[in-house]
């Protein structure tokens, strides 16, 4: 592979303190280097250069998104993708096929994407799909918050075993982070019920969500995992839930973070958990409360789950919430419970501009982004495809960077948005540097992906070039921004040009990242006894057939973790 130098671009590399300087970026053998000779030159003069985008919460692979694909031929019909001499055919819109997922992220200059919810028993399926997503690097977050062993060890107060279990399970599923979805609620849903709030009762275990979050967050930090716990709070989608969200953040405050970081929790798609009011008729923004808390505390990061006005497909590991959504909408509903571990639901949903609640939700997402002062604490996502397809990211960028863009959208909305959020009075506009933080530098840092999200020497050679002159651009010209960020001028992945002028030119297979955390032998031996006994009793798959084999991660990057043990 030929070396590459990207010359004369305006470089935004916040992790290295570079804010729009004109610089050359050199790369060789897949890494950023100081100098190259005889390199392929890419002229980026008058253009923006950023590290490749890093999406830390998206649903791109596994049974949930595949149920979405399966149940929505009408969604595919409006967005078909032809094959080319380099690319495979497929379908797009809210549930894109695997190949198209890789292409479309790369076309936007994104080079790393995290699958946010992997049921352990479905891990093999997740990895089969990840291996069919070209170009981008990826990882999957293993679901822990309703797992039998988690609940059992929390109940027994056996913290060392819980830690060992987390480490073992990440290895068995080739997972990258600890994902928690409606802790305890999905377990209760297996009897058709839910849990409400942090101190609700998880029926068969007689424990609370508070205990589950505390146990897993402690285990996570003591194991020294690269990312914090990745938490979908209780009471999602219920007006008034901002209180639960803040209480949950407060729970994580008591946890001692891993050495070298301040954070102990990442709260996902916070828009859905930042609702004030008592019901969907009087719902209003709870974003100011959450922003106030996050501004005063350093142990929390969150992402938006920004809502887009379009027809999309909601899918979460939160079975009871999807059931509630089915009851609200009457749309088609898939529920899928996984023995001993997790659940999921899928319901198509159209966010409408004339729907009072939807417009408030739209405002909440943007308010969170604008009211939280430090962009290192709040990241841009749509919780693809829950808030909307990831292909709408350029639109979200425009709303963040241009008040004009927000005003133009607000003019078309139900007026509730104006009355029930403070968005109209918010004049903040993101800078390009802040945009780089919320779409790559901050997310890479939160994930602990040290070689991603920046352009320092030794970083992975994942780079995006956008055809927009930041010195001339003004927020009123937000449509130009949308256009430039929708189709990158160049995307370089691992030192190879994969997109040129918005067209995919090469489709190498990116790596799957996972975490291998060390467990002391004695603790592991004890854990294995429990696993062997309970697998035999309660699982329909044998323990031997459970862990994902090496063959499912054809290109992989293993992150070692060790941590503190008694």
């Amino acid at each position, binding site marked *: 592979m030929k070396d590459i130098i990207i010359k004369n671009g305006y470089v935004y590399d916040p992790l290295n303190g570079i804010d729009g300087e004109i610089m050359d970026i050199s790369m060789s053998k897949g890494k950023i280097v100081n100098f190259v000779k005889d390199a392929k030159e890419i002229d980026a003069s008058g253009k923006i250069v950023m590290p490749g985008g890093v999406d830390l919460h998206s649903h791109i692979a596994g049974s949930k998104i595949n149920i979405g694909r399966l149940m*929505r031929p009408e969604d595919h019909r409006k967005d078909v993708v032809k094959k080319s001499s380099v690319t495979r055919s497929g379908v797009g819109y809210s549930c894109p096929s695997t190949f198209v997922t890789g292409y479309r992220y790369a076309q936007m200059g994104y080079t790393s994407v995290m699958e946010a919810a992997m049921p352990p028993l479905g891990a093999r399926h997740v990895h*089969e799909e990840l291996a069919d997503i070209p170009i981008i690097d990826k990882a999957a977050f293993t679901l822990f918050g309703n797992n039998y062993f988690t609940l059992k060890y929390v109940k027994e107060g056996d913290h060392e075993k819980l830690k060992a279990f987390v480490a073992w399970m990440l290895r068995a599923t080739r997972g990258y982070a600890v994902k928690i979805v409606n802790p305890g609620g999905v377990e209760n849903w297996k009897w058709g019920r839910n849990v409400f709030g942090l101190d609700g009762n998880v029926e068969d275990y007689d424990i609370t969500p508070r205990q589950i979050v505390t146990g897993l967050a402690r285990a996570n930090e003591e194991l020294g995992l690269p990312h914090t716990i990745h938490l979908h709070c209780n009471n999602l989608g219920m007006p008034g839930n901002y209180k639960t969200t803040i209480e949950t953040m407060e729970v994580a405050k008591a946890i001692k973070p891993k050495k070298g970081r301040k954070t102990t929790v990442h709260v996902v798609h916070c828009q859905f958990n930042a609702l004030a009011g008592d019901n969907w008729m009087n719902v209003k923004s709870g974003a100011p409360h959450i922003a106030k808390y996050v501004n005063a505390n350093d142990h929390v990061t969150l992402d938006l789950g920004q809502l887009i006005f379009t027809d999309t497909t909601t899918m979460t590991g939160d079975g009871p919430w999807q059931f509630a959504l089915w009851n609200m909408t009457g749309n088609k509903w898939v529920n899928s419970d996984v023995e001993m571990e997790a659940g999921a639901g899928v319901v198509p949903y159209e966010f409408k501009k004339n729907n009072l609640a939807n417009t408030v939700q739209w405002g909440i997402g943007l308010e969170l982004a604008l009211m939280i002062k430090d962009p290192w604490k709040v990241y841009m996502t749509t919780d693809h495809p829950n808030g909307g397809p990831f292909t709408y990211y350029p639109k979200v960028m425009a709303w963040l960077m241009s008040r004009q863009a927000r005003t133009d959208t607000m003019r078309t909305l139900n007026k509730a948005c104006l009355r029930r959020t403070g968005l109209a009075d918010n004049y903040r506009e993101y800078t390009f540097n802040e945009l780089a933080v919320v779409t790559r530098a901050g997310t890479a840092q939160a994930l602990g992906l040290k070689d991603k999200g920046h352009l320092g020497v030794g970083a992975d050679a994942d780079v995006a070039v956008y055809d927009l002159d930041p010195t001339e651009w003004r927020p009123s010209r937000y449509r130009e921004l949308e256009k430039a960020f929708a189709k990158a001028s160049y995307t370089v992945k691992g030192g190879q040009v994969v997109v040129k002028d918005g067209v995919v030119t090469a489709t190498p297979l990116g790596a799957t990242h996972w975490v291998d955390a060390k467990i002391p032998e004695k603790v592991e031996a004890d854990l294995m006894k429990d696993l062997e006994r309970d697998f035999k009793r309660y699982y329909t798959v044998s323990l031997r057939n459970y862990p994902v084999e090496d063959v499912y991660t054809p290109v992989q990057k293993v992150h070692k973790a060790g941590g503190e043990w008694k």
Partner: protein
Amino acid sequence: MEKVDVVCPFCGCLCDDLVVTVDGGHVTDIKNGCVVSRSKFMNHGKHRVSSATAHNEKKNIQEAVDAAIKILSHSKRPLIYGLSSTECGAISKAIEIAEVTGGVVDNTASVCHGPTILALQQVGESKASLGEIMNRADMVVFWGANPTEAHLRHITRYSVMPKGMYVEGRKARKVVVVDVRKTRTARMADKFIQIQPNGDYEVLQTMRALVRGEEIDVDEVAGIPIDELKALVTEMSEAKFGAVFFGLGLTQSEGRHMNIDAAVGLVSEMNRKTKFVLTPMRGHYNVAGANTVFTWQTGHPYAVDFSRGYPRYNPGEFTAVDLLASGEVDAALIIASDPAATFPVDAAKHLAKIPVVTLEQKKTPTTMLSEVVIPVATAGIEADGTAYRMDGVALRLSKLVEPPEGVFSDEHILDLILNGLKEAAK
């Protein structure tokens, strides 16, 4: 040598607890398997296609592959069909062959649980992995399904007999069978409800109405007294966790996908009272995998046409039986299936008229009418790979013994064909 926890490549149960003894490169014994599984493992070496053939002449593999490439590259509209009894790697290659040739790819779901998928696309479904049912279900309903004869260990391993976390085995479960005749499964049930043939839709819709508390002004529906249906609905509502398993008795009788639509509706409705799930009894061991791989690669589970360069889906138009019966396809590539024996006569007749390439282990009616036959390894015995259980759980199939000399896996042969087609297109 004994290999434990081997996954069985026969039916959608995908039992993963077989103990297989391999001696001198042959399977010599198998434990834990059902009789069908045993037969598959012990006899996989018999009646094999002895060598590759093209136009009734013996060929080596490469010559046969070249003949296959010639047929497929000359075809204006090839059909690629089968795939439910092979592993996912082969399925993946078959889809790409359809894309490269601008053909149509379909799997056997189009003649079994296709209607189930159509219903799911209309209304969704409430489902669970089999272990959920084992651990929690105190009520199990088999509707138009006869696992005692079709999924032999389903009852003992997953749905009726086993002790689960909250259920003390058979006695703690209420088992109901709804069928048109008293099957062997019905004989072990607590309650058997005999339904008139093709009466399923009416009965299911009546039950939905009863769940909602509507009064029904008839004495019987499809031969079942209304009081019996009322009693059944009451029992279902009182269960802590109920599961409905349905088979081809529901998908292939009158009403087809509308039957499943009604069954899904009933089960969804039940979730407003208690917890209820339903699961289709998938037949071939990897038909669920075929649907799964098709869906993540093309967005569609079966019946996918690539003639416009992008995937289009239309069951009834792009399904194998319909394409053959209408004489629309001019060549076929058949993998791990025997359509000549199982398809309606009009479809099979057209298959006999066009050049057919078949990848098979054994002699079948389809190999007999094929222009090109390529012997392949038996997935799960002679080749490894992935398969998806009827509830969507993916498991690893193992390679226990070497295939006969000069015989390769489906995936390998399809890869050779694919690369040849790509070369030919240049």
